[in-house]
């Protein structure tokens, strides 16, 4: 059974990050399995309107104003006419929202549910319970997921967290981990320097990625091990901290700050290193360490969130999120490297490739879609009852307003008047190009996709 899926999130290309890559890779694999996928996101600067990506992935950059941190204002009804128009035009059957922080995803899911479409939500992050922002966000997530057909989390820790904070029944939550594009991330030991040991760090330089810990570790370990070099990629508000450490310790030639990296450059930087360091304070699932392991690096990471579930124990050194423990972990890794007690890079790569691949993730997501498509559509009354059970009664007014607006729009802009968009036919495009050239034409994405 083929589905027509709409991925909705505030976070998509040209923004770079885990959620964006997840959406893109999952969409590509679903398209290759025959489903139709479109992506809905807000406009990024000049980039407004309809764009096409690889294999005909249609991306709608909606002209909605960004409010804060790449998110739109969380009204549930302002973009209703446009989103409804797009759902009818593309004949969408399933709406897949990503990331709890994305207001656009919640809005599209509320609208989709009122239009009797099925909704799935993927949660990519862990969240606390204690402070005010956490309480508010958890409540918002709870009311948004009250009527969601199914929820997907990226690790078992993530599932626990989502079930507890959003009070979703555990039967409605599945765990489908992220994967890494192992065809792109391959080791290259020849690029490593032979006389120094390079520690690579690639992350956004924000508080929750543990930049404070990183700075202290660098300051303490550099004097002790003169052959150690640090290569730091990524940018963010905490960059000044690392520069300060660099200046104070006179480590200009030993610590290199590369600034923000294009995703295509990440592999080049990773292959130059021997060890990968991750100092996150909280992480549902860390893509970066899987990419590093696929490139054959030893991984030293803090034991937080879902990280212990990600890699087998031979490929990772886990530490507590404090400086002495991190120092111990790094020193153990260095000692093992010097003594030769390491997993060879290519073996590391093959193990990761066997554990994670995107086609497997797409297959599991497809199972979720099949299950969700078979569920009965609920009436408006039962939906309102499930929202009411959460206790936030004003939200019922919002949902009712959205419902009334949809009824009004059904009269004002009737469905028959809406032009149905033509689907991008992937197979005919690829077959056409292979015949026109005479020789075998290798589609660029297919060449990269190794179905391990």
């Amino acid at each position, binding site marked *: 059974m083929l589905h027509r899926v709409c991925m909705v999130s505030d976070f998509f290309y040209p923004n770079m990050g885990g959620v964006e890559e997840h959406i893109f890779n999952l969409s590509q694999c679903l398209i290759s399995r025959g489903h139709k996928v479109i992506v809905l996101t807000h406009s990024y600067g000049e980039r407004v*309107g309809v764009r096409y990506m690889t294999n005909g992935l249609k991306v*709608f950059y909606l002209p909605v104003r960004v409010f804060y941190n790449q998110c739109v204002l969380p009204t549930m009804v302002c973009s209703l006419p*446009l989103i409804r*128009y797009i759902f009818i035009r593309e004949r969408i059957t399933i709406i897949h929202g990503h990331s709890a922080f994305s207001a656009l995803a919640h809005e599209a899911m509320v609208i989709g549910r009122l239009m009797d479409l099925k909704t799935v939500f993927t949660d990519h992050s862990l969240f606390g319970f204690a402070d005010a922002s956490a309480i508010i966000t958890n409540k918002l997530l709870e009311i948004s997921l009250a009527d969601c057909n199914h929820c997907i989390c990226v690790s078992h820790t993530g599932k626990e967290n989502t079930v507890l904070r959003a009070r979703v029944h555990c039967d409605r939550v599945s765990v489908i981990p992220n994967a890494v594009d192992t065809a792109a991330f391959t080791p290259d030991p020849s690029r490593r320097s032979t006389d120094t040991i390079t520690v690579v760090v690639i992350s956004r330089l924000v508080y929750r990625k543990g930049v404070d810990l990183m700075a202290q570790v660098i300051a303490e370990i550099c004097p002790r091990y003169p052959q150690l070099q640090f290569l730091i990629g990524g940018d963010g508000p905490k960059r000044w901290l690392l520069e300060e450490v660099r200046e104070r310790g006179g480590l200009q030639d030993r610590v290199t700050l590369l600034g923000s990296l294009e995703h295509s450059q990440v592999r080049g930087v990773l292959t130059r290193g021997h060890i990968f360091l991750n100092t996150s304070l909280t992480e549902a699932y860390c893509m970066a360490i899987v990419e590093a392991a696929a490139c054959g690096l030893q991984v030293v990471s803090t034991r937080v969130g879902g990280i212990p579930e990600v890699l087998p124990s031979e490929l990772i050194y886990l530490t507590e999120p404090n400086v002495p423990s991190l120092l111990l972990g790094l020193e153990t890794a260095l000692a093992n490297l010097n003594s030769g007690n390491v997993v060879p890079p290519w073996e590391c790569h093959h193990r990761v490739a066997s554990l994670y691949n995107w086609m497997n993730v797409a297959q599991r997501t497809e199972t979720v879609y099949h299950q969700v498509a078979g569920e009965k559509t609920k009436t408006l009354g039962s939906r309102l009852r499930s929202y009411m059970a959460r206790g936030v009664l004003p939200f019922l007014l919002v949902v009712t307003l959205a419902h009334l607006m949809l009824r009004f729009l059904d009269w004002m802009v009737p469905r028959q008047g809406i*032009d*149905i*968009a033509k689907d991008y036919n992937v197979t005919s495009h690829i077959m056409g190009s292979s015949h026109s050239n005479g020789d075998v034409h290798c589609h660029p994405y297919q060449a990269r996709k190794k179905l391990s």
Partner: protein
Amino acid sequence: MCVKRVRVSKFTSTQQSVDGRELWLDIVHHDTSNLCFEFTVKGVSVLYTGKEFILSLIVIVSLLATLDIYNPNLCVVAFLIFLIGHLVAKVLWNVNSESLLLVAPVGIQLTATYHSGHQTSQFIPWHFIIDVVINEAITGYRVVYYLAVLVEQPHHATTKKKLIPLFQQMFLCSIQDHAWHVWK
């Protein structure tokens, strides 16, 4: 000289625009060789019975009825002025028909005829034209397909390449099927 005007085909009222109006497509061959065509898209005028018009009238009348003349609410007055202005603009500047005169290899002329009989036109020289494309755009609350001409202006100061949309006022439904018929 247009001695013989051959009307090739005339599409009937099964064509609907995205607004729900009926559209008529006229194709005129101005000479016997396939060098001079005129395509005209005419909208059957439904302005005064359209949903938007009637709804705006109802809203204006109800706002006027509830408006307190001696102590008017500024927001309501501003909204009222906006609505009335919008309505007047639609009546005055409603596009009745649009036509595309194609003379190879001189160029393309786009003419829009308004309700009041007033006409505006735009000419594109032949050697500037690179290609004709069907593009998709988000306008207001809709996503529409529109026909556009890809133009290159080598001597222009700022914009070297431009996309000039055709038939801006009337968006044809299922444009790809019609475009195939028309451009064969």
